[in-house]
């Protein structure tokens, strides 16, 4: 059980659950394949017949129209049949367990499940219990992982920065609760980024995070110095409800990304954000819409990266 549950016996990707422990060859294959799909998404007819006749279930135990839509578009561009299930609103309230739901849908000859759940480890649990031949993509589980988001970030970074081996990357914001941050950290370190920093107040830091291979900063001026890539994280509003942060205003003042703070990074630094953005909380509009922002490219590349992941999984 403790060996990598995403890979089959031949070391091929069977499920995409986390970026942790994935060999660099698989990460690069996903990025390279996504390059080809970018070409497809730029055509008039943005569709290829690769997954014709395959059934892909969007299984969202935690609602997220935005993420669900990107997977839906990716699947449809591969000619797969897509079924969207907002499970939070249906069977779970009738007492059906998550695995019951999965078993029922498997009986409808599902080929792939895209799973989003509020609990860390939900996608792993499903992957362990689906029949052989059914693939699982983790579209975000609790605080644990969001591998396709991290991969599209890597794709975007490679597009703009070419070589991972000379980069300084900073992840800024709520590390403690962020599945995106965890997946980014594993992907960046595997791809050979020599310096990954996290910048956050101590209340939003996860214990022993430096064991994942990052350096911790609490001060933006120090943390942003000579940084080539800024990965902004979304700050959930509920963080202000408890005692983790006093106010959105104070957070913005010390950790929000403004032009002034961005100027502390490398001159040609790029800014990424997984969306949706809280303008005026973690990022200033001038930066979000500025010329160093590649946030809209991320959205475009996100489709190609998800097409690549689906295709590679279905082909294994």
């Amino acid at each position: 059980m403790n060996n990598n549950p995403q890979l089959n016996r031949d070391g091929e990707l069977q499920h995409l659950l986390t970026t942790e422990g994935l060999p660099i060859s698989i990460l690069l294959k996903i990025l390279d394949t996504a390059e080809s799909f970018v070409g497809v998404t730029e055509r008039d007819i943005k569709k290829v017949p690769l997954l014709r006749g395959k059934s892909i279930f969007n299984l969202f135990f935690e609602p997220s129209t935005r993420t669900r839509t990107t997977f839906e578009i990716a699947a449809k561009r591969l000619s797969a049949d897509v079924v969207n299930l907002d499970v939070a609103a249906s069977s779970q309230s009738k007492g059906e367990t998550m695995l019951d739901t999965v078993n029922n849908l498997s009986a409808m000859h599902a080929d792939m499940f895209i799973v989003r759940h509020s609990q860390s480890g939900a996608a792993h649990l499903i992957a362990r219990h689906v029949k052989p031949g059914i693939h699982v993509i983790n579209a975000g589980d609790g605080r644990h992982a969001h591998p396709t988001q991290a991969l599209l970030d890597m794709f975007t970074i490679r597009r703009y920065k070419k070589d991972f081996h000379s980069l300084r990357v900073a992840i800024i914001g709520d590390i403690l609760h962020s599945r995106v941050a965890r997946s980014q950290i594993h992907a960046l370190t595997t791809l050979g980024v020599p310096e990954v920093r996290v910048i956050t107040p101590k209340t939003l830091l996860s214990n022993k995070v430096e064991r994942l291979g990052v350096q911790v900063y609490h001060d933006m001026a120090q943390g942003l110095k000579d940084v080539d890539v800024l990965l902004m994280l979304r700050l959930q509003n509920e963080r202000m409800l408890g005692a983790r942060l006093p106010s959105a205003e104070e957070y913005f003042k010390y950790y929000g990304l403004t032009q002034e703070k961005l100027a502390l990074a490398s001159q040609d630094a790029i800014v990424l954000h997984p969306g949706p953005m809280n303008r005026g909380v973690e990022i200033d509009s001038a930066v979000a819409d500025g010329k160093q922002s590649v946030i809209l490219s991320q959205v475009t590349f996100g489709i190609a990266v998800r097409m690549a992941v689906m295709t590679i999984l279905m082909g294994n």
Partner: protein
Amino acid sequence: MQLPNAEQLLVELTEKMRPDVATNIALVGIYTGGVWLAERLHQDLGITLPLGVLDSSFYRDDFDQIGLHSQVRSSNIPFKVDGSHIILIDDVLFTGRTIRAATNELFDHGRPASIRLAALIDRGGRELPIAINYVGTTIVLSEDKMLALERNKNGKLNLSLYDRVNRNSE
């Protein structure tokens, strides 16, 4: 078995195609060998429309058996497909499945007025109703052989024969 000289065949193929060259003709090479040939033909025939390249991996019919090809390259069709007269270029014509996939992909870029097919070698063994318009030569090979076009570092083309490991690798 004595294989024909690829460079010689290319010269012959070029000459067979030359009478049909017109300003509205576009060439599209199929990765990998077809693109090498198309680059040479494009220059030697003085084609004016920019050269197109296709990787038909996303349109193949063997995805369920063998998955995605290890290295997929981006297709690029830099001319208007609607109403164009296209000559598809491949290195070796065999079952016809690659041509079927490539044709399908072309139609996702638009509606060409016509598509013709050119290949350096026709080795027979068609599994689909595909006909060839321009061919360097025709040779007969047993099913378990794989004929591959290769390009050395000086850009010279040559043919090699291999034992087939996988029926679907062509």
